[in-house]
């Protein structure tokens, strides 16, 4: 193990390490702690210049209450949910199938197709922006959740296919051969042999895509414009112009907007990290 395990070092270093940990953590998360602090302060604190000190009174209920009952925030949150969930389902479904095809079968254009998926995934968004926006408008899907969902599914399919294909590659191939010898149809092999083995990959991808899509801002701005379809990342800017310089409300709104992926992460930590670090170990 590297660095040297702490238990094998001197007592003083052990104690100072234990003390250093929480200190380092607080410094690292200082920006977040500050926003959390902002969000429970009364407005008066900001007027009096008490930005970073302790709140003079505890106003969490009234601040968060305003976010939920006196703004479009709930609407934006719902939009985000209705954009994110279908995208996760769609992208995972498409990439399961594509990953199965690329991971199991040998055919000439297998690698070229695989590499086109990977390459597309790295492309700058801007080169897609004008045509995709134009197409979305001509399909009458501009400023709708469906328009965003369709694009997200398509774009995420690149990354998801890379992920799924590598996962399926690592499955024991004799299992599939055995099923073929039994004369099981190929689509049944996918459904009953491969899919059940893919559960960890499905979970990992689902949380990852959930986070990516929830946090997307660029496409939200390009393909939507009002509270009827905009997700919370884009809505927060409108929210902020409604409460200009009202830091206590803007920070409460930001926390609400950021929360769902955070919850997702802490609930599904193992899968999330397994997904993100895929390929980091050979």
């Amino acid at each position: 193990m590297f660095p040297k395990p702490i238990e094998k070092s001197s007592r003083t270093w052990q104690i100072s390490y234990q003390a250093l940990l929480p200190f380092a953590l607080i410094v690292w998360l200082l920006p977040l702690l500050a926003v959390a602090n902002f969000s429970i302060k009364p407005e008066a604190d900001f007027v009096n210049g008490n930005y970073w000190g302790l709140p003079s009174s505890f106003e969490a209920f009234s601040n968060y209450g305003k976010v939920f009952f006196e703004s479009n925030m709930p609407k934006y949150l719902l939009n985000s949910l209705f954009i994110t969930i279908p995208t996760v389902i769609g992208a995972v479904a498409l990439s399961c199938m594509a990953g199965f095809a690329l991971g199991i079968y040998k055919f000439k254009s297998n690698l070229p197709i695989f590499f086109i998926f990977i390459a597309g995934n790295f492309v700058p968004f801007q080169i897609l922006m004008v045509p995709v926006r134009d197409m979305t408008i001509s399909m009458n899907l501009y400023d709708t959740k469906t328009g965003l969902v369709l694009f997200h599914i398509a774009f995420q399919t690149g990354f998801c296919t890379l992920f799924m294909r590598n996962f399926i590659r690592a499955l024991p191939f004799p299992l599939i051969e055995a099923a073929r010898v039994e004369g099981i149809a190929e689509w049944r092999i996918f459904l009953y042999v491969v899919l059940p083995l893919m559960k960890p990959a499905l979970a990992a991808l689902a949380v990852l895509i959930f986070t990516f899509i929830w946090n997307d801002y660029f496409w939200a701005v390009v393909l939507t414009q009002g509270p009827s379809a905009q997700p919370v990342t884009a809505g927060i800017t409108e929210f902020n112009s409604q409460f200009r310089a009202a830091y206590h409300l803007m920070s409460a709104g930001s926390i609400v907007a950021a929360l769902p992926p955070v919850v997702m992460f802490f609930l599904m930590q193992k899968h999330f990290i397994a997904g993100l670090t895929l390929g980091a170990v050979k």
Partner: protein
Amino acid sequence: MSVSPAASSHHASTPQKGWYKRNEIAITPWLFLLPAIIFFTVYVIIPIGQSFWISFHQWDGLGEKTWIGTANYERLLGWGDQNMDRKFETSFWNNLRWLVLYLLAIPAGLFIALFLNQTVRGIRVYKSLFFFPFVISQVVVGLVFSWFYLPNDGLFDIITGWFGIDVKGGVLGNPNTATYGIIAAGLWPQTAYCMILYLTGLNAVDPEQVEAARLDGAKGHKMLWYVILPQLKPATFIAFVVTIIGALRSFDLISVMTNGGPFGSTRVLSFFMFEESLSEFGFRMGYGAAIAVVLFFLMLGFIGYFLYSMYRDEKGAR
């Protein structure tokens, strides 16, 4: 299309079946690929081509496109007797700053990973809390940092004030510091990502090699450089890929924190492109597309390298 040997012999023994049954192994992958290929082609592959096409036109996004040849590129890059678009120049240099400084996330992430790679009580919670910034949307990160940088009232200004440093107009209000302020905000989640990559990598480091090196008297930075880092190469590669792509994709933070200002000093190509084609300044789609094409070629260099590395691994694996 080659067919795997086990399956073909099986099918040879049962020839009297339908056309689909006989070609099942050759056709199935295409059926499975079809939906993904259709989506990807319509939304990713074709638009890339269309952007190239649009970049040779003058177009406001609504009316007719007018063919103007390479005029957009001439104006952008300053070919012929014109000067290079000043906005483009600023954006390009800022992109380079992003690229270089963003890479700091890799050593910083490694440093934190080494710091946290212990087995004391509660370390798991520490690791996930250190990773936490990565999960938060860049929009929120941008907002948080813009409050941190507030002139006079911001924590940054207060702390630097103790040392007698005063950034005129606040970090984000000063054209000399604004870009660096934004990059610092971007480094925060990016470092967290690199950290988690290295933590996973360190977990898989071969303990026997480490012990052997230790017996040979290796320790500290020598051990890190000659024994540990070579084993972390896959993690470093991924960290490199995501950091480069992240640096060139930077948009959210700039849009939220400064909106390109002050005086356009924080523009990068991705933001500049958005501004030209979709903002109150007008809908110059053709010009925007030309910027996107330049950005695309810039990225293509990196993408080519990444794909080449992956291709080599792929070949090695067979």
